[in-house]
């Protein structure tokens, strides 16, 4: 590796102007990337890491300004380049891959054409030559049957394939620097592992430098040579990956590294009475075709799931997206219609009407994944939390309701004095606490947790996991914990169920299953999720 820096960021700041006020998003950061090197920038959401990546290519909105600093790429200051020249740099010398593969590709053009366009603009390649290069690129990023895929539209590809196409686009002109902004966050664990492997391989082969932006320390450990830890727009610590992981200096880095959720699952209760059980549960959506909408087949979202959760236990449901785990949770709570008997606290609840279900609702609650979507933006926190009380204890006085809501907020670690505010004034972690409070205010016995930590930063994730564990202990709750994040499941679940395509692949006590998975699918899933741990121990 040559010693000269390819990209050098010196004393660099970014400020945003909003209704006459300037807010500093990036505060005097300096770092550099050498040729062929991978530098990772990690930090929580809002720490300014994505802004840093975007500003290298000057892709920030016009409300952004740079009070100080310079971005030197091969000796040229990108911030001062005229628009004409920066366009030559974009897509040619420096390319970028974004988080969301669903929206980064134009849905109206076949992928072949989108890559060809890149070659035409920057390389002047046309016709057969361009076509050959596109096929070569697609093969390089591991798309099978590349030639046939040229005419495919983005919606015909899976998320992982789309991200591969994005990478092919980014690599088309053999860039010197490749910026990846959370390229795997929206993907399943197994796909994530594949993409990371691909990136690492490509980098080795093409000798390009990579700026990798992520919030996931495990990815950093796997892929980066050096790491910059960002917090509130500042780089608090930077250095070689091994050194930082072994010997972190800054308290924030230490906190981040310690943020791994503690593995203390609820113990299995083999003798406890059953909380909820389902037998051969099915959620099938008919596929209708033709003039008379004849049912020609079914999409089997949940297909013959049998389960039994005992009081005080936590059943962790894991699987990739589309495996039917969320549908299973909703079906058990009778929020979507399903087939097959469901027994809750000894009473069959399948087929009950909405009104007949209501008495059961206070004992069964749900916490959703997205803390931004699950709270009504137009209701104050106290209204949101006490809504359940209005339904189930209509005779309760408003003062008493308010009191109960305040108590519930206190239980989840929020200041009850803030209860008259609206959801947008709270951070993601606080919002998730509010959602937990809403579920807990009725003192339920059974709670479905649908990816409650997936949308949160690492530090907050482990706080929420601790909170859920404490509540379970205090109130003897039973959880159905749905997640694709195996580390979080390991931290909470006493039993684990692995799902694929609506069917159970494997289930059993967590301890046994994590140690010795039987099926190949489970093993692949675990390898992808825990690969870093296995690397570490070996």
């Amino acid at each position, binding site marked *: 590796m040559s010693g000269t820096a390819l990209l050098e960021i010196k004393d660099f700041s970014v400020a945003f102007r*909003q*209704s006459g006020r300037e807010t500093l998003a990036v505060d005097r950061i300096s770092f550099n990337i050498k040729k062929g090197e991978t530098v990772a920038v990690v930090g929580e959401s809002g720490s300014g890491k994505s802004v840093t990546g975007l500003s290298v290519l000057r892709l920030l909105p016009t*409300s952004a300004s740079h009070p100080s600093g310079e971005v030197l790429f091969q000796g040229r200051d990108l911030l001062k380049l005229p628009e004409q020249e920066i366009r030559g740099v974009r897509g040619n010398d420096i390319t970028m891959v974004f988080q969301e593969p669903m929206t980064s590709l134009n849905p109206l053009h076949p992928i072949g054409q989108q890559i060809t366009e890149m070659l035409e603009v920057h390389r002047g390649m046309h016709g057969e030559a361009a076509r050959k290069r596109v096929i070569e690129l697609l093969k390089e990023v591991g798309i099978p049957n590349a030639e046939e895929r040229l005419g495919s539209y983005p919606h015909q590809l899976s998320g992982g394939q789309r991200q591969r196409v994005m990478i092919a686009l980014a690599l088309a002109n053999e860039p010197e620097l490749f910026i990846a902004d959370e390229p795997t966050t929206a993907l399943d664990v197994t796909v994530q592992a594949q993409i990371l492997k691909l990136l690492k391989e490509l980098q080795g082969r093409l000798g390009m430098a990579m700026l990798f932006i992520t919030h996931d320390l495990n990815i950093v450990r796997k892929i980066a040579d050096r790491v910059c830890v960002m917090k509130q727009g500042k780089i608090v610590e930077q250095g070689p990956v091994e050194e930082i992981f072994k010997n972190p200096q800054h308290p924030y880095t230490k906190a981040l590294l310690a943020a791994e959720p503690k593995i203390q699952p609820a113990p299995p209760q083999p003798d406890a009475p059953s909380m909820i059980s389902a037998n051969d549960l099915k959620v099938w959506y008919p596929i209708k075709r033709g003039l008379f909408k004849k049912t020609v087949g079914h999409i089997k979202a949940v297909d013959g799931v049998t389960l039994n959760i005992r009081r005080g236990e936590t059943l962790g449901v894991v699987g990739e997206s589309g495996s039917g785990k969320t549908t299973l949770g*909703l079906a058990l*709570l009778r*929020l979507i219609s399903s087939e097959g008997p469901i027994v809750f606290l000894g009473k069959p609840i399948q087929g009950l009407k*909405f009104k007949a*279900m*209501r008495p059961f*609702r*206070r004992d*069964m*609650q*749900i916490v*959703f*994944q*997205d803390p931004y*979507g*699950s*709270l*009504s*933006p*137009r*209701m104050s926190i106290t209204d*949101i939390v006490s*809504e*359940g009380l209005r*339904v*189930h204890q209509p005779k309760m006085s408003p003062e008493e309701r308010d009191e109960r809501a305040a108590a519930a907020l206190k239980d989840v*670690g*929020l*200041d009850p*004095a*803030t209860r*008259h*505010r*609206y959801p*947008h*004034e*709270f*951070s993601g*972690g*606080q919002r998730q*606490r509010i*959602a937990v409070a*809403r579920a807990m205010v*009725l003192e339920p016995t059974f709670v479905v947790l649908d990816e409650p930590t997936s949308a949160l930063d690492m530090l*907050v994730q482990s*706080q929420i996991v601790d909170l859920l564990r404490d509540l379970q202990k205090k109130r003897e709750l039973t959880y159905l914990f749905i997640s694709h994040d195996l580390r979080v499941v390991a931290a909470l679940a006493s039993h684990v169920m692995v799902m694929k395509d609506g069917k159970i692949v494997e289930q059993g006590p967590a301890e046994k299953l994590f140690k010795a998975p039987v099926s190949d699918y489970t093993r692949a899933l675990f390898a992808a999720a825990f690969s870093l741990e296995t690397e570490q121990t070996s």
Partner: protein
Amino acid sequence: MEQITQTPVLEQHKEKVETKQERLSPINKRRWQNFKSHRRGYWSLWIFSFLFVLSLGAELIANSKPFLVSYDGKWHYPIFQFYPETAFGGDFETETNYRDPEVQKLIKEKNGYMLWPLIPFHYSTINYDVPTPAPSKPTWMYTEEECKAAVAKKADAKSCRDLDQNWLGTDTAARDVTARMIYGFRISVIFGLTLTILSSIIGIAAGAVQGYFGGWVDLTFQRFIEIWTSIPTLYVLLIVAAVLPQGFFILLGILLLFSWTSLVGVVRAEFLRTRNFEYVQAARALGVSNSVLMYRHILPNAMVATLTFMPFILSGSVMTLTALDYLGYGLPPGSPSLGELLNQGRNNLQAPWLGITGFFTVATLLTLLIFIGEAVRDAFDPRKTFS
């Protein structure tokens, strides 16, 4: 001072804790700021409110009864109370006609006097003292020569200036145009507001039900609305006008039949979008009933689109009423209406004060409403609210 205990996660929101508990939520405050910064709309709102409040007190501004009558040392308030003519020494048991020279003489004889409103005409008052046959031009435009006859008829009047002033002239029935304009403005706005509010309520309810339940309900209702909106309103009105008597509420009812569909689309779309949001799911998981869910959880989120449309619906309603009055199918004959004024203006081109007054009133009213509507639309624009 209240004791605030901070948990670690709350720390970053410290500065917000102090500014809590305000009447408007921050988003609405922001919207109000946006609205205010839209100077044209903001001023239009003030001017419109001022005019509307003023016109609500039309009886105190333009009336054929005086505020106050001092008769025989006692006070009388004819605007607010009924006095038969006998109370002032007249012969009839009916309500006093205070404009009658005989009555005026009776009151004067008992050392009484009358305090008149600014415009001494009700919209239905016929001015028998006009110098030339109706429609007569504004009184201040007459020469002494022209109003000699009228002055002579009136006791203790010496010149044109002593006559009751028709500032904007009279219409074909010798009724004061100013008074009719004020009352016409009021009835237009009230009619428009009532129609807007009622059709919004029905439209929101219909849109909410369609969007929330979706499926067959939605499909059937949508087809129904498509058929319903393709009925030509005007012809139905013509037919109905031939059968039913004309009247404020009948007209309101007929227009309501067709105007409620305007908001359905927006509200339906908003409900369709929102009904599968997680917070709605969460409320459903709490066992919240459908009606409460729609009203408390989804409706507030659909209100932005609705409120944005309202001023435009209001101006549309005013316009419809004016058009119908112009054609003669609107309010019953004799009602003060801007459309009727415009129609008279068209039929009497030799009397331009009719057409000009009607035009300016309608134009001002509609312009104000459109400006307010634009400002409201901009204020609720999420790109402006959150940028």
